[in-house]
């Protein structure tokens, strides 16, 4: 397993990035001031086998002498730097640590070791969506999300209308979230995270949200945000949208940073890896 450090690979890819800038986003400028700096970050957490751990099962397991918790090494010594103006695509197989990385950057999961420096306010749109209390209305969830995110009541009120407009939910905003279709939920979630005035926006698998029309609108909004935001992170299995929306990419595999470079290079290497399989790939030079 080869993991490249940030400095090595960024010098290696500078030429390529300058030569072939992505069509819709600005160029990747490796010398720009940093937006995010990730230094040798590892995240290890313990989790249970059961979906709902109970005292009862814990006692039963104890009686059998089994360990009910398992340690997960989600990230292992990952380092990279994200200069201002980067739109970073993150690719990797399921369980590669992509979501953990995004949550660590968002301050939700503190790192087990290492250090993260984030310059600016982060708004994260994660795979799990925003509708946290299905019995509360869309608007109440928006207000609660904004307040939890540290906005003041006045700021939240200002944004609530914009969010409702953008999500195109109409009178559904007044109805409990449990009445929403999954597309409506993700539209709301997307609208909330792009309206938090983020300096840094993180989007985890969200582009699959909504119908074709909303997808276009979302993509347009993200490009719009790129002109004001300092950096953007996009986690996606859709390699097409990574190539389209990002100007730099990293590839994670089993918690380690495999490669970073232009989206074309990284997605090509990743696709090849998926086709030939892990064993064959690790024999080659990266």
């Amino acid at each position, binding site marked *: 397993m080869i993991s490249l450090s940030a400095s090595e690979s960024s010098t290696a890819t500078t030429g390529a990035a300058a030569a072939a800038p992505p069509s819709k986003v600005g160029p990747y400028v490796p010398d720009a001031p940093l937006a995010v700096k990730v230094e040798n970050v590892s995240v290890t957490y313990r989790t249970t086998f059961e979906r709902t751990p*109970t005292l009862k099962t814990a006692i039963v397991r104890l009686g059998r002498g089994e360990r009910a918790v398992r340690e997960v090494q989600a990230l292992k010594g990952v380092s990279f730097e994200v200069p201002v103006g980067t739109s970073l695509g993150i690719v990797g197989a399921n369980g590669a640590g992509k979501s953990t990385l995004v949550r660590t950057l968002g301050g939700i999961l503190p790192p087990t*070791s290492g*250090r993260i420096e984030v310059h600016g306010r982060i708004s994260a749109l994660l795979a799990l969506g925003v509708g*946290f209390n299905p019995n509360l209305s869309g608007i109440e969830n928006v*207000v*609660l999300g904004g*307040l939890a995110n540290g906005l003041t009541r006045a700021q939240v009120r200002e944004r609530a209308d914009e969010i409702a407009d953008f999500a195109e939910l109409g009178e559904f905003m007044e109805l409990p979230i449990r009445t929403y279709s999954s597309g409506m939920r993700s539209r709301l979630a997307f609208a909330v995270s792009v309206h938090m005035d983020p300096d840094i926006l993180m989007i985890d698998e969200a582009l699959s949200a909504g119908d074709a029309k909303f997808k276009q609108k979302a993509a347009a909004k993200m490009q719009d945000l790129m002109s004001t935001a300092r950096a953007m992170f996009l986690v996606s299995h859709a390699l097409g949208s990574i190539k389209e929306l990002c100007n730099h990419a990293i590839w994670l595999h089993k918690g380690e940073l495999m490669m970073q470079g232009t989206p074309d290079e990284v997605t090509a290497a990743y696709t090849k890896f998926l086709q030939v399989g892990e064993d064959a790939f690790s024999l080659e030079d990266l």
Partner: protein
Amino acid sequence: MKEAETSAAHAANRETVQRAEDAGYLSEVQVYEPHRVGLPPLAPYFRELWRRREFAAELSRAEMRSANTRTFFGQVWLVLNPLLLAFVYFILLFILSRRADGAAFFAHLTAGIFSYYFISGSISTGARSVVGGGSLIANMAFPRLLMPLSAVRTNFYRFLPPMAVYFVIHAATGQQWSWRQLLSLYFLACMIVFASGVSAFFAALQVYFRDTASFLPYFLRIWLYLSPILWFIEEVPHRLAPFLKFNPLFPILGGYTDLLVRGDVPPPWIWVAAPLWAIATAGLGFLYFMSRERDFAVRL
């Protein structure tokens, strides 16, 4: 040369950290590092908690709205529920065991049960608060302690209508009024602090053992019997007497009901023990919660 470089780097590092600490989560620069001894840095944590108190208030308001607490029948139910329980115990203790002091005892019983409902309600809604926080916990970085504190706030507001009814009972049963009743606010404050601590503790425990909420009713029922609700503090059942110093609710609830119902000023040790228990419980409960907080996002 190299030394100078590293010390310059350290200085820059310190400066960054300092800037981050000065401005909190919303700052220009945020630094995330491993938590020391499993605890997040306390001063920024509580500063951020205070800054986002509006979130806890709104969460509690929204929950009360969805539970129809603010409607007329919602309020009636809040009163009826503990009042019926008070009637049950009144019949049990007054009629079956022939207590002589009917009116005074009934006033004491309702005051005790109403405040016990506040504490037990805070504990049981608090226990569900983090697990019920679902994707908010998984998706956003904020001091999680706001969740159980919001549950305590909800239960405090649910405690107000029963308290209003208590004053009607107080008048109807011919209890005396006195300025000393105001002193009961001191014990009410202890009660709130104490409830917050226990609530935070069970909120964290519930994440690891999801059946905690099913054991809670038994635990709470036993605690009710061991607390000075069904008896006055001076008539401690003698088998219970040696253990009373281990029950935080003895000074807290005992002092509260004594002042509120009879206007009796409790002995000094009650005045000292009540805040000590409250602060120690809140301290331990909060520390336990905060030390486990990191886990919540991956355990839910």
